[in-house]
């Protein structure tokens, strides 16, 4: 006999959910037959606040959009403002930006390692990877003064030059992390429990990916080679040599394999950047921020974050403040329509793993 569908509220207070959001599940037994996401628990109205802030004050709001990885937003904002104004960025600043972005990616991957395993009840990985993530945050602290919010990449370059001997400390940390990534592989990808729980779960195939406008590792996990850093290169990514890993499985396992190889590519990029780093100044002075106006126009820039493409649209009316800033993160497409679609037919116990695998980050949706 078929059981009657029951409604189950997952979140906003739930240990397995990836942030402050809620999913209303319709379940028959243990199987999900319908899902509706409800978001808006983190809506701070950044875009409204920025209409009242000047161009430099807006920049401090930028990094607070989504916390696991704060630098892509700063970089997008800086690059969009530079595009509207036509401001040049010194070569050295571009290399430093790439280094910071890739360090942020690496830190975000470490958090993902912990989250993906924690969602399946494997807590050892969280102790390892989130603990090791602190070494990257220490570097950020030395460079920018903050562990999470850096406010370092600003229009015109970066805020200050690298401290003396910083490159060596980065390389030392990378050598350590590279060894640790092998340990993570032993713990995660050789783990029978992890394999059994994730293989064949949370399928996003090619057709679904195109229909839903999927981006980032989820798109690469279904065999489509797509990366903003290659397709629409920004900063100095076109001068760097790195691979875009793909996988054909289209399930959580495939996306985990993609991320595992991407973390190593990030290390490779940082090493290249440190080798190629030119000298010179790190920022072109901006005018007095109280009087700084941008010409009328708009710009749309895209950045590759760990979760996928981040798009930032900025319109200027020639005044002191942005006319309109609109940010779209990867979770904006992943966490609502795609998640509602993917969850159907899955088990309740797998919801958390699927959300982690799709890169659901609620603050990015709600801003």
């Amino acid at each position: 006999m078929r059981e009657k569908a029951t409604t189950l509220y997952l979140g906003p207070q739930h240990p397995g959910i990836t942030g402050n959001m809620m999913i209303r599940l319709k379940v028959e037994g243990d199987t999900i037959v319908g899902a509706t996401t409800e978001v808006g628990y983190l809506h701070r109205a950044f875009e409204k606040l920025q209409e009242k802030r000047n161009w430099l004050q807006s920049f401090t709001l930028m990094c607070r959009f989504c916390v696991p990885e704060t630098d892509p937003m700063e970089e997008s904002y800086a690059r969009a403002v530079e595009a509207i104004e036509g401001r040049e960025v010194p070569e050295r600043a571009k290399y430093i930006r790439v280094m910071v972005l890739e360090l942020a990616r690496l830190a975000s991957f470490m958090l993902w390692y912990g989250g993906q395993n924690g969602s399946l009840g494997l807590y050892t990985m969280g102790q390892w990877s989130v603990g090791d993530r602190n070494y990257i945050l220490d570097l950020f602290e030395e460079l920018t003064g903050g562990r999470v919010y850096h406010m370092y990449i600003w229009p015109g370059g970066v805020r200050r030059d690298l401290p003396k001997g910083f490159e060596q400390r980065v390389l030392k940390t990378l050598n350590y992390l590279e060894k640790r990534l092998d340990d993570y592989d032993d713990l995660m990808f050789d783990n029978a429990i992890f394999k059994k729980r994730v293989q064949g779960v949370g399928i996003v195939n090619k057709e679904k990916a195109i229909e839903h406008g999927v981006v980032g590792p989820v798109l690469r996990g279904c065999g489509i080679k797509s990366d903003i850093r290659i397709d629409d290169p920004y900063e100095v990514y076109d001068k760097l040599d790195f691979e875009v890993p793909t996988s054909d499985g289209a399930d959580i396992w495939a996306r985990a394999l993609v991320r595992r190889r991407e973390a190593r590519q990030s290390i490779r990029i940082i090493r290249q950047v440190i080798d190629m780093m030119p000298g010179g100044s790190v920022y072109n002075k901006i005018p007095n921020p109280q009087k700084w106006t941008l010409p009328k126009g708009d710009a749309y820039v895209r950045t590759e974050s760990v979760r996928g493409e981040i798009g930032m649209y900025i319109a200027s009316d020639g005044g002191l403040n942005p006319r309109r800033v609109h940010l779209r993160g990867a979770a904006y497409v992943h966490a609502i329509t795609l998640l509602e679609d993917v969850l159907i037919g899955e088990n309740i116990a797998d919801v958390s793993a699927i959300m982690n695998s799709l890169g659901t980050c609620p603050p990015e949706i709600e801003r």
Partner: protein
Amino acid sequence: MNMQEIKENLITHVKANFPEAAEKEFDGNRLDFNVDKQCIPSILTYLKDRLGYIHLSHIACVDWLEEGEFEIIFIVWSPEEKMKVFIRTRIDREKPVMPNIDMIWRQANTYERELREMFGVEFIGLEAPDEFLLEDWGGPPPMRRDFDTEAYADDTFWHRPGREDALDVREEIIRRSREEIPDFAKKYSR
């Protein structure tokens, strides 16, 4: 094909089917088309199915309060040609109505829900729950330029007053370190 040829090719194709579309060229891989709102679904379908612009990257809305118009911008991306195309349209601010495009790309549904809530733009035939980010919101659509967020916050929420016993810390620093404040710093009073 280099970027200029791609752009010319694209303009020829779009112009042949949508003669009223007004193009604007930019440096790099960006091309703008200004169109009427009625042909938004058809031009997007044409770009997606015929020209390979398979990725809808963004839908943004700008409130031009002084001109009494909303500008809606659709940004599509072609992974083959590495080109961003902006489809822009202007609609009346008083009765903002737009055609719905969420049958072309499913994720457009989310963008449209947000525009409906934040700007009050109505999308004909949009099927989605009424509330997206806000709950029990009684005021005007908040992202419109004429909504004053600071006045609303002052009316609705408490603000913690500043401390009355707050001292000018610079005097304390001088007392401790016996250093003078430079003249240029004196004008930045607390």
